[in-house]
Structure formats: structure tokens, C-alpha cells
């Protein structure tokens, strides 16, 4: 009986095949940057706009040349720079000029009676022109979210010093799928409490048509 040895498969070209595949995947890979600014659009049904005191509105208008006009704190409107927006928004939200039942014990601002009453009453309104660039719009949105986050961070740290983290970190941990369920349940109430204390009251007007 002749015992035939199976011929050995030449694996020398295996590396070439693997390289080919490797290069294909290298080229097609896009490490996606999946992050962005989350927003909620208002539902379309028309409700009568509530009556808001003018001092509680922080009105930002962006024109077609991407200039910012700010109408707040009882002035008629001043041109501001993008880099000053965050500071001014924080000062407005944190003002706490309210008295009586509108008083804001947690506000640390100047308590200017011409400016916002408390966190809950303060509204930031944004109006832009149809010719405003998207980049400016996103920058303004980013700064306004930053202003809210700054205050929420402060209040979160004050309310829960034992956690040793700020609101943004807590929120990130909460939305991280790796966080355990017990941690999530623990964080949820705290995040909701801060969200309730400093609600993002942000309104966007329909853009103006410029001629």
C-alpha cells in the first residue's frame, strides 16, 4: 500500500492576500466623528405666545454680515463680539433680579432689576437672517449652550459635592452605555433636578428675509 503524503499547501502568498485586504480596509476606513449639538425643534401647532416681561429676554440678532446685536438688560441693542456672548449670557441668566416669589436664592449675579428675574424666567431668543452663515449660527448656539452648561456645572457641583464631577461629565457618564444601571439611576435624578433648576429656555424666531 502506497501511503501518499498530502502535498503541503504553499502559504507564501497568504501574506500578500492579507495585505491586499488590509489596504482595502485602510483606504475605506473613516473614523467617524459622531458628535454634535443636540436641539429640539418646537412643535408646529400655534399657541398664543405667553406674555413675557422684556427684562427677561436676552435677544440676540444675527444679520447677513454675521454681526451680532444684543438687546437685553433694558438697553436698545448693542453690537457685540462672538467671544463676549458667553460671558454676557451667563451674566444675564445668573442675574437674579427677581423679588418676592420670583426671587432667585441660587443666582450669584448683580441682581440688576433691569435684567432677568431667575433661571426659570430667563429666556434667550435668537433670530437670524436668511443670509447668515451656518458657521456663525453654530458658534452662537455653541456659546449659548456653553453658558447654560457653565451654570449647570456650578449648581451641580454645589448640590452634589460628593460626586466630584460636573454636570457635563455626569451627563456624559449617564449616556455612556458602559455605565452600570445602578449608577445611571443614581445620576438620573440629579441630572433631572439640575435641568429643572436651570431649564434651557431658548427660542428661535423665523429668520427674516433680507432684500
Amino acid at each position, binding site marked *: 500500500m502506497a501511503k501518499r503524503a498530502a502535498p503541503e499547501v504553499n502559504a507564501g502568498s497568504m*501574506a500578500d492576500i492579507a495585505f491586499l485586504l488590509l489596504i482595502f480596509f485602510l483606504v*475605506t476606513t473613516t473614523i467617524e466623528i459622531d*458628535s454634535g*449639538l443636540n*436641539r429640539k*425643534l418646537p412643535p408646529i401647532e400655534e399657541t398664543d405666545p405667553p406674555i413675557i416681561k422684556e427684562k427677561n429676554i436676552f435677544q440676540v440678532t444675527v444679520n447677513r454680515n454675521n454681526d451680532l446685536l444684543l438687546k437685553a438688560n433694558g438697553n436698545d441693542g448693542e453690537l457685540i463680539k462672538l467671544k463676549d456672548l458667553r460671558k454676557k449670557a451667563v451674566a444675564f441668566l445668573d442675574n437674579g433680579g427677581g423679588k418676592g416669589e420670583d426671587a432667585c436664592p441660587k443666582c450669584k449675579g448683580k441682581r440688576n432689576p433691569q435684567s432677568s428675574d431667575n433661571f426659570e424666567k430667563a429666556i434667550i431668543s435668537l433670530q437670524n437672517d436668511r443670509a447668515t452663515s*451656518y458657521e456663525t449660527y453654530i458658534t452662537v448656539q455653541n456659546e449659548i449652550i456653553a453658558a447654560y452648561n457653565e451654570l449647570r456645572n456650578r449648581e451641580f457641583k454645589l448640590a452634589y459635592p460628593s460626586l466630584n464631577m460636573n454636570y457635563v461629565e455626569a451627563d456624559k457618564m449617564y449616556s455612556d452605555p458602559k455605565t452600570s444601571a445602578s449608577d445611571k439611576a443614581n445620576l438620573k435624578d440629579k441630572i433631572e433636578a439640575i435641568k429643572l433648576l436651570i431649564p434651557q429656555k431658548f427660542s428661535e424666531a423665523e429668520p427674516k428675509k433680507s432684500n
Partner: protein
Amino acid sequence: MSKFKKKKGGDLPAISTASLPDIVFMLLFFFMVATVMRQNTLKIENRLPRADQTEKLAKRNLLMYIYAGKPSSAYKDMGTVARLQLNDKFASVNEIAAFIAAERDSKREEEKPFLTTVLSVDKETNMGLVSDIKQELRKVNALKINYKTAPGNPIDR
């Protein structure tokens, strides 16, 4: 005659390449796992604006992408005005409603409330187009949106 014959120096032993396929396969598997295939071929320019107050996007299969921007150089004949892209083709603003409806139908019932519309818009687009998109989204009640941005501080330019 000695038993321990010194090898003649000079020719180096050949380096074994037998483990090369293993190394390459390891890399290959890494890239295969890390790769996210592009769902759509972009026909428009899509340089995202920068922002630093971002949140991570939710699960990939719950996202609906709307792209907007100027037609890229390969599609010059479409003009230089910013256009909308849905799936693989240029679209007009009033096709958004049908697009959202189709996306919703392809998802399971319990996933529908978590669907988010991602606006991936070129930074040089005018707000006119963006607000038209938002108006359409409000009409079909797709209220959760996300402005996709690139990481970075938008102020120091």
C-alpha cells in the same frame, strides 16, 4: 578533527517571515472591526463647523442623515448654490417629508420615538436653507435634531 566546527561567519541567517501573515491578519482584523462603511457618497462639500459643547450621537441605526452644502467639484453642473442631499441624490426641500416617512417605516415601532435627524451641513451654507429644512422637519414632527459638528473651539479663528 574537532567536533565543534566553528561556523564560517559571513552569511547571516535569513529572517523568518513565517509570522508576517499573522501580523498582517491582526492589523486586518483591527481595521475590519473599526471600519464604518460610509452609508452615502457625498455629492456636496461637507466641511462641518466647529463646536465644543457637543454630545455624542446616539445609536447609529437611529439616525437619519440630511446633508447640505455646495455641490462638490465633480457636480459643477448642478450650480454653486447650496443643495440638499438625501441618501445618494440631490433633493429639494419638499422631499424631506417623504424621506423621513420612509426612514420611519424602516425602523421598528419601539425605536421610532428615539429617531434623531442629523443635519450635516457645510459651514458656508446660508441659514435660509437650514431653516427651510427645520421647517419641513417640524411639519412631519421630527423634532429631535442634531447639528453635526467637528470638534474644536469655534471662537479662536
